[in-house]
């Protein structure tokens, strides 16, 4: 066997062999869809699209599922995922919005304005921030930020005002958004910085020679040239924000509540649960058939949203192809 490997390969055979390995990845993705949809099928076949809607208390619905038998009746599947979807949209939306603003400013700073020695230190710093495991942010959140908010920002009057509906403890939408933003900003910054650096220097200098100030030149020429890269980076960051499970489950308050923007300041202190964090929270109950199927349905929704993101980013980039610089 080894002897045969050592002999020179024929080109034809090598191409087929390498191609087969490359296709393994595509097969893996297809298998992923098949297995997750198969696991989710009972839920979707019983509930249809009403599964996505709102209604009832989600925590109670999950609690009822825990007590179901191995051969559940159709009514046992009752589940309305809207609070989770709303929570996911809120956290991911805010985090990406903040993250994009911060990382655009940071990338412009690093590439065009920072003095050389700052530039040299900033790049490893961004790389380090991108590599810090999420659970460390979660630990800071649960041991430092949540108690801090509970003690200094949340007032007793505010707690009492909603005591009949939910209990506020410091953990909630605000901390979740903060931590998820912290987690996706370095990735965004690194990708945008790489793209900005690939813009030919002459383009921007040409704009400056025409009378634009350096900042305007960056915005008008460099940022425009890297629009496809910005879209791709945003799509990746959004996918990360959607799928962040463990950190959210640590600081989100542990209740599937749909925060109401009309509540003012309390809005950011209300507990929230995302699709991904609900899976982590119920991981121990996966052996219960009804809950198993429900969690697979949640995973299927996450999987399809990340597919939709990839597709959307591809479609948005399509008309921009003409002026792009980086691949």
């Amino acid at each position, binding site marked *: 066997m080894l002897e045969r490997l050592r002999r020179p390969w024929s080109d034809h055979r090598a191409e087929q062999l390498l191609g087969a390995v490359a296709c393994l*990845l595509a097969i893996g993705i297809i298998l992923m869809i098949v297995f997750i949809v198969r696991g989710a099928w009972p839920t979707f076949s019983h509930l249809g699209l009403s599964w996505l809607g709102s209604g009832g208390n989600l925590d109670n619905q999950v609690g009822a599922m825990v007590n179901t038998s191995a051969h559940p009746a159709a009514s046992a599947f009752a589940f309305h995922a809207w609070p989770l979807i709303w929570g996911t949209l809120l956290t991911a939306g805010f985090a990406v919005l903040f993250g994009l603003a911060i990382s655009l400013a940071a990338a412009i700073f690093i590439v065009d304005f920072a003095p050389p020695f700052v530039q040299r230190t*900033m790049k490893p710093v961004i790389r380090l921030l991108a590599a810090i495991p999420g659970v460390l942010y979660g630990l800071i959140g649960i041991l430092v930020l949540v108690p801090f908010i509970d003690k200094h920002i949340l007032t007793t009057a505010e707690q009492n005002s909603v005591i009949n509906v939910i209990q506020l403890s410091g953990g909630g939408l605000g901390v979740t958004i903060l931590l998820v933003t912290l987690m996706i900003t370095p990735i965004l910054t690194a990708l945008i910085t790489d793209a900005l650096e690939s813009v030919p220097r002459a383009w921007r200098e040409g704009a400056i020679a025409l009378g634009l100030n350096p900042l305007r030149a960056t915005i008008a020429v460099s940022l425009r040239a890297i629009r496809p890269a910005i879209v791709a980076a945003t799509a990746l960051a959004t996918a990360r924000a959607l799928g962040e*499970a463990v950190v959210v489950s640590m600081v989100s308050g542990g209740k599937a509540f749909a925060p109401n923007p009309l509540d003012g300041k309390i809005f950011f202190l209300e507990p929230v649960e995302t699709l991904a964090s609900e899976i982590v929270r119920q991981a121990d109950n996966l052996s219960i058939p009804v809950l198993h199927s429900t969690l697979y349905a949640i995973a299927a929704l996450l999987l399809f949203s990340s597919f939709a993101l990839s597709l959307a980013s591809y479609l948005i980039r399509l008309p921009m192809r003409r002026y792009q610089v980086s691949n």
Partner: protein
Amino acid sequence: MASAQPVDSTRPAPPRRRRHGRRSSLRSWRLRDQITFVLAWTVGLGLCAVAISVVVFFAVEGIQYLRPSLLVTHPSASVSQSGSGGFLDAIEGTVLLGAIGLLIAVPIGVVTAVWVIEYGRPRWLGRIVESTVEIIAGTPDIVIAIFGLALFQLGAFSFLSFSEPGGAFGRSFLTAGAMMSFLAIPPVYTATRNGLIATPRQMREASFALGKTRIATIRRVVLPAVRRDIATGSTLGLARIIGDTAIVILLLGATLRLQSDGALGFLSGTGSSLTSYIYNNSPAGDGNAPDKAYAAAAVLLLLVLVLNWGVGRIGRIGGPPIHAERRLGA
């Protein structure tokens, strides 16, 4: 836009004098631009401040709670923090997961990149593979974990994990490592691909001119040229593997100690990693021993720092890479 700087053009031209530095020109900017400029500086330095404070925070907590004995003792179940032992098993778990994940991810990532860049025919298949990697990079780790659970609970894979006559549990180092490889494949692929693109065409043509086949060229010329890119990609992938928690919680069981179940000893047994140890010892988990969580977090952060430093080093070993000139010219 061009009329934004009328000051110089209306004044009788002074003898060619260079505008000194950035500061004088900044004054002539519009207020909005000045604010944006200051904001860019603030954000840039703010990110540095965040990084420094995270590292300092865990360094302080680590010095406070980390004892050498924690690194070499096994964890045990206990109500008090003093009796719950160290986290040797978690460290072993992290190392084992990283090794298994990389063993699977590096060959697949490199081969895929080589095929896409060097062959890539038929064209449509090459595009599909390229977008597949992009999709994998965007797939949430929790979804990958759920998929792994469904896949490895099949009867055919029961030898990989603890199993009963009723079916397999799907939880073991092998199954978790296999799913971890999904996290590491995108960085390995991207780094290798970028290296291959940057490798000058002349290197390949010189090899062809000597009568080498395409695959011989790849093995003897192209792959050695991108060795460093592969190493960088693998290190980035390793950092993602050791930093992941969701897959460990769902697919490794996050048990206190390494356990040997099933046909393949500890490889098919359950265990924990540093990340799941931290999670379980935070108030969110079952253990609730913040001291231990801080100590483990300091170790994990140190590991990440070393890896990160390694990525920077790899880029500089043995002079500039072969394709450096090409990159400078681009």
